[in-house]
């Protein structure tokens, strides 16, 4: 592993970039909230919301938590847990869905 965690300073985003990301996050949040006031067909709304949330999630994880620049090991830990949980979530929603359906 060549990229040493302690000198990622250069690689780190600058203050300017942090602020730009904050602005994007704000815009995404506004879009999300906007869906609440606009009539969007249900079938479209859910994917849309999930995509927006996913983008926010990705931005924070990649830049604020530096996963983009940091060791892959860290991403490994995090996304392993995250993936298991998403799969479990889907599985349980389906299993409970079948039961009450």
């Amino acid at each position, binding site marked *: 592993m060549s990229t040493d*965690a*302690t000198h990622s300073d250069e690689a780190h985003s600058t203050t300017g970039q942090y602020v730009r990301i*904050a602005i994007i996050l*704000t815009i995404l949040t506004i879009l999300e909230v906007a869906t609440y006031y606009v009539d969007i067909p249900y079938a479209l709304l859910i994917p849309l919301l999930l995509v927006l949330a996913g983008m926010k*999630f990705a931005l*924070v994880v990649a830049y604020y938590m530096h996963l983009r620049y940091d060791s892959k090991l860290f991403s490994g830990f*995090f996304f392993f847990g995250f993936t298991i949980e998403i799969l479990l979530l889907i599985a349980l929603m389906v299993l409970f869905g079948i039961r009450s359906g």
Partner: protein
Amino acid sequence: MSDAAIAHEAPEEHPTSTGLNHRKILMWAFLGSECIFFGSLITTYLVYRGKSVVGPYPSEILNIPLTSVSTFVLLMSSLAMVLALAGFERAAGAAGDVERQQQELKKGRFWLLMTAVLGTGFLGFQAYEFIEFVHHGLGLTTNLFGTTFFVLTGFHGTHVGVGVLWLVSLLVLSYFGKVKPLDVELGGLYWHFVDIVWIIIFTLIYLIPH
């Protein structure tokens, strides 16, 4: 073991196998584990969605505008958090230049304080929301919605509370010169994690219509 030996063999920063810091791996592994923790809570909320046998139901009671504001507050705290870290890192980087170091450290502390303040603000919103709900007749035990909602957001709130405590401790310790950038970074990772959990909660619990 003599004292001389300790001085001699001073805790040399012998390189770790991966070159990565122990505590940072610890934090990430812990966050991986926390994913399952919050994931299970969220899953429970979702499988019990719409299963309450008595009201009040979510659509009658969730206050989207209010929560949008608190969501925004938490989001901004994440920005403050990265700025705080940047301050501490630059301070450490400017080791030779005492004046600049102090300046950067000051910035770092300011943003640390801001993060804690915004976090406290978020908690304030949450407290207000909880009280409102109780006034509307939704308590922890009222129905499945109350049960799953309060426990999920309550545990998230507890995490925020722990985070605030952590940040404040860092702030205080920094005046004693005991805080290294890594300490701030670890607190930050935790803080951002709590933030992304909220990003998910906000979408899945508040925004997706019931």
